[in-house]
């Protein structure tokens, strides 16, 4: 029996204290590159079947964290277990349980669509006939059965992404790692990927998602963490985080380029202590306004056509907590 089969059939090693082991458990996890600490001692806990999101600006440490979870980056400190296995020692066994959708579409350009899946399956020790069966099913799942013989560079962006997803499913993973799975896709293609991910979650696959699309995280994730400067700065269910950090309605003001700073200063006096303002490019977001403060704000802003009110969302939480608007 191959290692893969062994792992697929055996239950994960039972943990010391519980029946259902966390699929991902990190304690004090660190990654250092020389003097720079990319991941500065984080704790993570992803339960079986959970759809878990990691948000954060570029350079927050998400990619390093994922690379450690997928056993391609050595851990600098702390410990990290995936499905009860230690990443420092059981890398092959862990990788056999993972499906990875990387940020870049690193499909094999020298092989066709079907051949990509077959070649990939060999790394898991999946025999040829079984690999062809799974590949056929997965191409059906991602609605690409008619493209089995196509070359990789003939595929659209959406199809390429779906094929990467199909490839990540060839080993019937217990945990799917999704690193910006819909970046660069048009809305239709994105919805198609979302639908597939929902289907997989219903089958009990644990999901770890990173994304820059707050809408995506809000829609898919049971629970998220927000990372910044290598640390986790917030954790919870999307709804709860919005409630806690952004609250009620948000007044959104469109400004001219030169005007944002001045308008912000002008608003600071009348709204003192009552509302919070974030600048995102030429937009001002005003949080926590009650009716009276809203009227005072409207007086300062003037032109009613450039203001709108909307519900707070995860993006507001993100902007507030990372405090960096659109800067890198």
């Amino acid at each position, binding site marked *: 029996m191959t290692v893969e089969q062994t792992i697929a059939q055996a239950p994960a090693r039972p943990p010391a204290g519980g029946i259902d082991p966390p699929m991902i458990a990190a304690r004090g996890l660190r990654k250092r590159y020389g003097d720079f600490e990319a991941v500065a001692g984080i704790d993570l806990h992803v339960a079986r079947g959970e759809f878990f999101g990691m948000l954060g600006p570029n350079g927050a440490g998400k990619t390093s964290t994922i690379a450690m979870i997928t056993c391609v980056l050595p851990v600098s400190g702390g410990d990290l277990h995936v499905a009860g296995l230690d990443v420092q020692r059981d890398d092959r066994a862990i990788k056999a349980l993972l499906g990875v959708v990387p940020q870049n579409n690193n499909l094999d350009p020298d092989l066709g669509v079907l051949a990509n899946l077959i*070649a990939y399956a060999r790394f898991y020790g999946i025999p040829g006939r079984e690999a062809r069966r799974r590949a056929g099913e997965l191409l059906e799942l991602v609605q690409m059965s008619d493209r089995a013989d196509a070359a990789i560079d003939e595929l659209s962006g959406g199809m390429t992404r779906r094929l990467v997803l199909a490839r990540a499913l060839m080993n019937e993973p217990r945990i799917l790692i999704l690193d910006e799975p819909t970046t660069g896709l048009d809305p239709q293609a994105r919805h198609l990927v979302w639908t597939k991910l929902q289907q997989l979650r219903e089958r009990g696959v644990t999901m770890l998602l990173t994304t820059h699309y707050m809408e995506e995280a809000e829609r898919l994730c049971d629970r998220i963490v927000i990372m910044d400067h290598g640390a986790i700065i917030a954790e919870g269910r999307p709804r709860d985080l919005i409630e806690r950090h952004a609250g009620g309605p948000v007044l959104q003001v469109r400004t001219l380029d030169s005007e944002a700073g001045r308008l912000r200063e002008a608003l600071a006096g009348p709204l003192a202590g009552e509302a919070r303002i974030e600048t995102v490019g030429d937009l001002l977001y005003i949080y926590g306004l009650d009716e009276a403060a809203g009227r005072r704000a409207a007086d300062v802003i003037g032109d009613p056509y450039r203001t709108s009110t909307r519900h707070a969302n995860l993006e507001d939480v993100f902007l507030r907590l990372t405090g960096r608007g659109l800067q890198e």
Partner: protein
Amino acid sequence: MVSMTARRSRIAGAGWGVRTWLGVALPDRRTIAVVRRHIDVYRELLFMNLTLAVAEPTLALLVMGLALGQFVDLGLDADYIVFVAPGVVAMFAMFSTVGESLWGGYLRLAQQDLFGAMLATPARAEDIAAGEIVWGALRGAISVAAVLIVLAVLTPAWGLIASPLVILIIPVAFLMGLLFAALVIAYIGYARTIHHLMYYFTIVINPIFWFSGAFFPLDQLPGWAQTLGWFNPLTHVVDIFRALMAGDLTWAVAGDVLWLAVVTPPLCWLAIWSLRRRLIR
């Protein structure tokens, strides 16, 4: 229940730590998955690949044997083409290995991120490096097999092959392929741009090619040049090929094989270490 226990202990067995030798783990059967991927790609363009493998050496032999041979007198008994043919075989073995490993390997590493995709599977950097080395060696062996066919066809005219021992050239070509592929993969771990490959080709591969005894006998050179030639892997390969084609085995040939067998394993280790260092930061 017995099998259950066995499964548990196998997983636990993986938990005793990854054993490494001087910083690299032993490659396992995923090496074969890497090689099979390359075979898949080779087969996609099989006709073109085989045509090239036969056409190139044919051309080279005709030019060197017929045209160049008219002007070259090495003071040997045989025609120049008989002298140079083993050198041509070695040359093609080396160039197909180096070409595959240097350009192909770098492309897969840096442009296609194919190694990144492989690393997401249970494969380790060690398996990927080992797969690249084995495939480079296979390319050399395939290429040599094609050249031998050409030589066999030309033999009635020029008496190039004097012994059935010639068939042993193929496994020797595989051995030399391991050496050259390792030499290249070790470098690829450091190459930052495609220009670095050209540099390597000029500084390392070209001198190996020219000063190997493939085109002229090294024993007519001054002593220091012969000493230098001894450190050139291709010198030993050419000596072995020449002996096998002539059916003239001596203890010196055993020495050449030993030289390759001793030098190749540390180079393979170096290559695996280097690619691992590049892939796993």
